């Protein structure tokens, strides 16, 4: 980038200098200026110098490409499989044996004990692209293809990214939240995710509504009969801060709206309006809110 800026300053000054210095002035006589057809030396110079710059830039780029793409992973790298769906993210943690959605948790890594995260990228339908600008460059998720990337975050925090390859109507609201946790927090989080869903007697009506309607065809709640795969896993829904892949904060009000009329939050998403009556809607949302 510095090289480009340097080139810009030099060439831009040349253009401005030529444009101003050699303009026709009113005092000029009407003679044509000297007719110069070219100069082999000058032309050779401005061929060879750019070639040298290009070679340097190529070598710099090739070094980075090699460092990123051909990196070796330490044995303690976390493995995550990210699967792009229209229009949300599925995250599988094969090392821990659970599945979650839309909010990726990874442990912070430090130089002394690196714990990078190795992400396998797959797609269930169309092309998507995994892009969290502050953590890594983007790599596409392409159906019938296995891509991979890795991140090695050194600061705890919440990083926002989103799908960067046009994937259909709601490409815009396919956000990607990455939580970089301290090792203790990450451990706590994985323990919690591994447990099956909470069964509370208070929400048994809601659970019945969920399991006797189409909800269970698309969503999984582990430990119950709901094992659909088309939508996000809801086993620990309330451990996530947003719903609809980052489209809205995870509140009771938004959950009610989402079940009643998903298009109000995310027009064009694949979640259907469930057409439940008021009572069932409240019951099912109460059930969902117990899933923490």
């Amino acid at each position, binding site marked *: 980038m510095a090289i480009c800026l340097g080139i810009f300053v030099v060439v831009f000054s040349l253009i401005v200098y030529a444009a101003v210095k050699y303009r026709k002035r009113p005092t000029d006589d009407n003679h044509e200026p000297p007719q110069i057809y*070219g100069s082999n030396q000058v032309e050779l110079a401005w061929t060879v110098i*750019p070639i040298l710059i*290009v070679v340097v*830039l190529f070598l710099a*780029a090739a070094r980075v490409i090699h460092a990123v793409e051909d990196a070796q992973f330490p044995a303690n790298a976390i493995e995550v499989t990210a699967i792009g769906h229209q229009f949300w993210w599925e995250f599988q943690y094969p090392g821990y044996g659970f599945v979650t959605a839309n909010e990726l948790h990874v442990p912070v890594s430090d130089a002394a004990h690196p714990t990078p995260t190795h992400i396998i990228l797959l797609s269930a339908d*169309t092309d998507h692209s995994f892009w969290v600008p502050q953590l890594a460059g983007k790599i*596409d998720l392409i159906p019938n293809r296995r891509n991979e990337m890795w991140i090695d975050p050194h600061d705890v925090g919440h990083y926002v990214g989103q799908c960067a390859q046009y994937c259909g109507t709601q490409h*815009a*609201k396919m956000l990607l939240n990455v939580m970089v946790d301290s090792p203790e927090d990450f451990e706590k989080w994985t323990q919690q995710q591994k447990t099956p869903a909470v069964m509370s007697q208070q929400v048994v009506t809601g659970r019945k509504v969920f399991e006797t309607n189409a909800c269970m065809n698309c969503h999984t709640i582990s430990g119950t009969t709901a094992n659909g795969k088309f939508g996000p896993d809801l086993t620990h829904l309330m451990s996530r801060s947003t719903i609809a892949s980052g489209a809205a904060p995870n509140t009771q009000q938004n959950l009610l709206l989402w079940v009643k009329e998903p298009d109000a939050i995310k027009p*064009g998403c694949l979640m259907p309006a469930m057409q439940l009556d008021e009572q069932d809607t409240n019951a099912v949302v109460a059930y969902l809110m117990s899933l923490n």
Partner: protein
Amino acid sequence: MFDAQPMSRPMVTTPERESSRPLVQVLHDWMVTVDHKRLGLMYFSYGILFLVIGGVEASIMRAQLAVANNHLVSPEVFNRLFTMHGTTMIFFAAMPIVFGFANYLVPLMIGARDMAFPRLNAWGFWMSALGGIILYFSFIGGFGLYGAGSAPDVGWFAYAPLTSPAFSVGHSTDYWIVGILVSGFGSIATALNVMTTILCLRCPGMKLNRMPLFVWMNTVMAALVLVAIGPLTAAQLMLLIDRYLGGHFFDTQAGGSAVIWMHFFWIFGHPEVYILVLPAFAIVSEVIPVFSRKPIFGYSIMVAATVSIGFISLGVWAHHMFTVGMTSYANAFFVASTAAIAVPTGIKIFNWVGTMWGGKIIYKVAMLFCVAFLCQFLIAGLTGIMLASAPFDWQLGNSYFVVAHFHYVILGGIVMAVFAGTYYWYPKVVGKMMNETLGKWHFWLFVIGFHLTFDFMHVPGLLGMPRRIYTYEASRGWEVWNLIVSIGVIFQAVGVLIWAANVIWSYYKGEIAGNDPWDAWTLEWHTTSPPPDYNYAEIPVIRSRRPLWDLKHPEDPDWKYE
């Protein structure tokens, strides 16, 4: 050949004015014409019409994105808008406009009476026209058919598998396929025609190394069209087979490959950039020398650079695919080939500046646009080099940084050159001068608007804003940048309106131009303005690259130095 008589003085007859004839007859003449000048004008006007339509689509998108969480258009409509905007601007605005210039000017510049195949020329134009009509018919024709389709919404590069029947129901994608397929036939016909004309119909004395650079660059453009359109047409036929005959080329659900479509598309798509930008270079290479009062600096190396751009541009396509997970070797190869193209492009910029150096530059509007072109194309080239580097692309590919980059190429480069070309050749085509005052208003408004829009568009890209999103949250910090970007559109729109007003006003009220208002040197200025149907009563005979210079300066002719 060299002993032949030098060219005679130009004729001064003016062709019969059309206004004296009934309208129906005039229209009929235009419909059935095979005259390269009329077809050139029709190509150009047709391109401008679609430029306006595509501009309106862009303006609606900018209005939607001006503030966060806007509800001006729905996501479905927004997706159609950006698909139609891209498709329209590339296939139905930019290509017809550059073909228009080539059609009108190439035969005049090489001293020919028409294109090599006048009927094929008309066929090519009407095929392109048909393609545009088919594409836009989707807006109305989609309704009432199965799927209640409307305009295509798969993006202008229509990545698989979004175009497969599973994800694109209805016929909107078919309109996209067939519209471009048909216009592709027209493009190939025109490219063949330009190529043949240049190779076979040059006037006596015009050796290849005496052709104006405009003609050289259009030769390479035509060659690239011949090579590049084929893969796109093939891919589109394969997609049609997928959609209707049960093929599985790109159908990932049945084992097809999404990546193959990307290769096909970009093998077309990247040479396409040079198909559009070489004619822009061609215009600039004619205008800068005339207004600097010097011959082009380094003619031979300009030709060499053009030809090498042509070749290299066929080997860079996968730089559009740095994020699809190619191996490190493939990525490194495409970094190298892409960066290599900067060398001949840089040579051109240096040579244009070298032409201005030591000249006496006359700042007519055409020249102003050329200087703006130089500065903007320089920036476009430099952001291009940045994006050529795969690691940089992993961050900024598919972001607004890329959108800003290629609009810098297309608007800052191609459109600026096209405006320069209209101010420069309008007197030849119409016989009247364009108004310089209106022209300066157009120039400054358009340049200010361009920089407001596209300078600031780089920033949200650097802040992580991907392209093709219909809305965004205020919390992302992109709002103020998008607002500035959208405000710039107003300036550009007013500028273009002034240009259109100027074109119409000057047609009626412009000063009479005469044959050679700019004291220029290429052959088209030797005939009348507008030129007669047959271009030249006597086929000219030339002895150098600047035949009119020889004529005007018999004491110091160019041919002495060649």
